[in-house]
């Protein structure tokens, strides 16, 4: 018997089949003339210096922290949101306490300055610095 989630699986399978079918059609119709230069990576017409696969600080620590505080919180709150009405005010208070504690976590995060992304710190060029002979 096809469950509800089975239908969702069919949706995803259909999407994959559709995309692969389109790629095959495109492979049939499109010409193929490989030349060495065509397969070099594009870098505005220049030879790329150095590879882009370097250690890249995507500030994952900050994103993970914020993700932890909020998305996990939201996941826990969904069942509460559905059922708190049966327990009246006390059910509501339970959720609110949970929310406020997490709000505190965010306030601490904000105060500590971890919510700052890679902000530009412009250093306006000072004349005497520039004119100092290059040591």
């Amino acid at each position: 018997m096809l469950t509800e989630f089975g239908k969702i699986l069919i949706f995803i399978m259909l999407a994959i089949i559709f995309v692969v079918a389109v790629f095959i059609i495109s492979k049939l119709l499109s010409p193929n003339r490989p030349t060495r230069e065509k397969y070099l990576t594009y870098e505005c017409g220049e030879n790329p210096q150095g590879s882009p696969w370097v250690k890249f600080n995507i500030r994952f620590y900050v994103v993970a922290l914020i993700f932890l505080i909020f998305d996990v919180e939201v996941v826990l709150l969904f069942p509460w949101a559905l059922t708190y009405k049966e327990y009246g005010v006390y059910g509501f208070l339970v959720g609110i306490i949970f929310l406020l504690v997490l709000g505190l976590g965010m306030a601490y995060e904000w105060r500590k300055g971890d919510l700052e992304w890679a902000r530009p710190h412009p250093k306006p060029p000072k004349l005497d610095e520039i004119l100092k002979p290059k040591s």
Partner: protein
Amino acid sequence: MYQFLYDLIGNEILAGLLVAVVPLTIILVFALFGIWLERKVSAHMQDRLGPMRTGWHGWLQTVADLMKMLQKEDIIATDADKTLYNIAPVLVFSGSFAAYAVIPFSSKLLGSEVEIGIFYVLAISSLVVAGILMAGWSANNKYSLLGAMRAVAQIISYEIPTALIVLSMVMLMGTLSLDKISQMQTSSFWNWNIFGGAVFGLSKFLLIPFMFIAALILFISTLAEVNRVPFDIPEAESELVAGYFTEYCGMKWGMFMLAEYGNMFAVSAIIVILFFGGYQSPIGYFGNSIGVQWLVPFEQGFWFIAKGLTLVFVQMWLRWTLPRLRVDQLMTVCWKYLIPYAFLNLIIIGIISLL
């Protein structure tokens, strides 16, 4: 829809497949129409004509683009990571198409009546992030790497305000399934959630301002999730050449475009369902008044798509007026403004719903 087809052909898988084909065609037709609409809207806003030469007022323009892209050669750079490079478009498109499984186009046309409708949509839409990261990293191009890194940070951090607003709506509605939410907002537009939902009484009037704020926050954060201006930083044309799909050409790039427009409609569909009454018509059904019952689902479908398109039009309208934000300003908007407001909104809606 599924039941009707199942009785017709008997085999479950085939019926499920046919049910899935309908939203796929809707997305394809919408994507073709959406790209043409975007070019015409941008043209007329900029005092020019837009595509005119292919068919009447260029309505065949996107068909021509699609068929031309089919003929483009497919180039995978030598030092790109081949497998990830090919999987990325599949992941991005299936991530955005899977959300259509739970969106009720009309009372009859619904992919699967799974209980956790909106929760599933939140979960599946983060699949797109993985696809974008794969696309950016595997293409071994500095611009696509920068675009992908920006996309990761942006979409993950804008999921939080979306989740908070959805949570506050679920608190009001008491159910997760999108179909039930649309059914609750029946008869006239006065019962839509944006005007405080169907229950009459003091809480309805108290809710209206907070519903407007919630709708606004949801619109802004879903704009960021779909990478539309002023948040289109991952594929910022003027800075990063073409963002994370710089190295993609031909139909692979076409898939990214299809996924973007599919996402756009999915996101505006969710806002329509949560706030503007899903497939309910604002002024009652013509079918009921003249007693033709089978006409009602088609009317519902019409109303749903009409509301979705108006929201898509607003997204396009924003694209051609506002400049683009920078990455750190984007993060400040999300963390320092959207999340606290969504937070307060959640608490106040909770209190009002208790009255």
